[in-house]
């Protein structure tokens, strides 16, 4: 591997990321899959970095899943997205930050379409006005939430209490990263580092002390493709995508998987359980799985946030081996306690996948 070669490519794919005053558009599925991640994003930006973020309860889905599944027409998608931008405009913001990779890809695609086919922009303005009476401005800056964390990775690292380093050996943890297909595969120049050797997550891992592991199937889809998992008959394809990646990363013995997209961490996490049940195979150390973290969770852990506050007890693959490696103290008794200390009950223990309960 020629490190300089990657650095040269990364230089070619830098993007402007606004410094402050963000209009935050949440993801439809993340709040169910990993509810602590978006809360952590807001906490990090507001409390650690002192940024102004508007978390608007009035925005809706971007229609991404329906759009990619061909059940929502393009004109409808454009109009819905125009409404999101109208809400941003009305709130006095110009910097749009979606939490979801698919939304980010879709916003990029629609803005690009409006740029190249101005008549579609005019139509959309007309439709939105007719339907809602609203008007909108196209954002000055569109950045995915991970771009924002990437931008402030140094500040987070400086404030951090923990490094991605094995506290027993002093060795950097080996981490594989997965950016999600819709982040930059459609528009390489809209992602930090481009599409082939993306840097957005690599930059965080390196800044926080870890070592990035490149593996042969790094670019492959995680299996969250909407036509794969949403259609029950295709779910085997979804599982086989994740399986292919686990088999490819296994020889490198990664300590964690860092993800960017709403679906990727979910599928990497849950399919490790499914594979263990189907094949009796696990990919982590000593019968555990490989812990899967969102970038907000990883930033939160670096900053010393309580893993259970971050919602990491909702992971199927236990994160405790990861926490122990970096010397992060946690209270196992609090793992399944509710906000007021009530017992939430423990999940069933899988037959093959070792978990901490």
């Amino acid at each position, binding site marked *: *591997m*020629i490190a300089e*070669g990657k650095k040269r*490519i990364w230089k070619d794919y830098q993007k402007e990321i606004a410094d402050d005053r963000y209009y935050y558009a949440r993801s439809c599925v993340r709040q169910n899959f990993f509810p602590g991640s978006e809360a952590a994003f807001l906490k990090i930006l507001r409390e650690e970095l002192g940024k102004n973020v508007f978390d608007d309860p009035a925005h809706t889905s971007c229609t991404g899943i329906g759009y990619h599944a061909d059940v929502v027409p393009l004109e409808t998608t454009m109009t819905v997205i125009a409404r999101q931008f109208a809400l941003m405009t009305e709130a006095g913001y110009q910097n749009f930050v979606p939490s979801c990779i698919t939304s980010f890809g879709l916003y990029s695609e629609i803005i690009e379409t409006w740029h190249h086919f101005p008549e579609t922009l005019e139509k959309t303005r007309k439709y939105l006005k007719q339907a809602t009476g609203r008007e909108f401005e196209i954002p000055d800056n569109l950045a995915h939430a991970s771009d924002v964390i990437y931008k402030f990775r140094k500040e987070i690292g400086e404030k951090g209490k923990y490094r991605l380093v094995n506290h027993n050996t002093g060795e950097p943890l080996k981490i594989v990263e997965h950016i999600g297909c819709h982040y930059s595969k459609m528009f390489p120049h809209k992602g930090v580092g481009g599409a*082939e050797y993306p840097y957005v997550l690599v930059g965080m891992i390196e800044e926080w002390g870890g070592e990035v592991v*490149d593996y042969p199937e*790094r670019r492959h889809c995680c299996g969250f493709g909407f036509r794969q998992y949403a259609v029950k008959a295709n779910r085997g394809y979804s599982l086989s995508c994740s399986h292919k990646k686990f088999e490819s990363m296994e*020889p*490198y013995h990664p300590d964690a998987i860092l993800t960017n997209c709403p679906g990727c961490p979910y599928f990497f996490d849950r399919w490790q359980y499914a594979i263990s049940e189907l094949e009796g195979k696990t990919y982590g150390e000593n019968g555990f799985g490989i812990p899967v973290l969102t970038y907000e969770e990883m930033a939160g852990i670096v900053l010393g946030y309580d893993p259970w506050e971050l919602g990491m007890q909702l992971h199927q693959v236990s994160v405790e081996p990861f926490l122990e490696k970096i010397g992060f103290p946690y209270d196992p008794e609090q793992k399944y306690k509710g906000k007021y200390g009530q017992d939430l009950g423990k999940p069933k223990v899988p037959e093959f996948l070792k978990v901490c309960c």
Partner: protein
Amino acid sequence: MEERIAIIGGGIAGLETASQLSKKGFDVVVLEKKQITGGHVEQWHQVFPDFRDASEVLKNWNQHEISGQIKIGIDITNINKTNGLFQIELRDGEQITANAVVIASGFDLFDAHKKEEYGYGIYDNVITSAELESFFNRKREYLIKSGKTPQRIGIIHCVGSRDEKVGNPYCSKVCCITGVKQAIELKEIYPQAEVFCFYMDLRMFGLNYEDIYKEAQEKYGIQFIRGRLSETSELQDGTVLLKVEDTLAGKPLKLSVDLVVLLVGMVKGSVNNELKKWLGIELDLFGFIKPPDAILQPNVTNVPGVFLAGACSSPKNIGDTVNDARSAVLAVEKYFNHLKG
């Protein structure tokens, strides 16, 4: 004869043009930006179809016979046409006056870095066809970084040619046969190695090309797989994993090889844009210099007194380049005869 012809480029097109014009009594000056003449051929080891040493081909141009001058290490900063004369300004302050200019500035090789997914400049054992020629020439001790003898080699055709994604939908003409030639040369050095050529089409248009292709399969056992490379990745042992679509079998294919050779195509010469600015010549969609009539007058431009020779106007092999240079000489001669009435 007093007419002076400035020839921009000292590759085979420029040398042949200079040689033939000189024989006809013109005063020529060859302006070469590198410190050595011979262009890309100078870097090559053997040439198709007869596997002759490229150095032997270059010996054809005995530069002492050229009556004018060959200037190397030349950096042109401007060209003006005033009163029918071309004033060529050089970086060192020298000014050259000529009655006509022959552009023989050739082509550049496609920058393989642009096909990021192929891993050139990222993975140790991904090289270009030009670098392979350099290996053949220098007889380096080892070809792959680990120093081990390659057991499997993948040659990728059409890198930067017939590729709309990089903006080059045209065919570079010489890469197919170059790939076959290089595959044979590799088999001669490493007889035990398996060599795979991944191609889109094999365009064996030249005399004997088809024979070489057949020999590559029958005598050397080189395997030709019709398929497009989608991406490469590096395995732990430094070998390169190829993901290919086998378009005959209609199936995806994965193969790990010790070495990947990218057959880089021809792209417009980097000087073409400046020549356009200085001289007012026209470029085609892909930046090659455009003659007003590519079929009947391939060597003239829209600017009287400015002529074209070789691959500056389109991809050409050595034979075509030599013929094109001779054709350019006829065009130059016709131009001066016409001026004299």
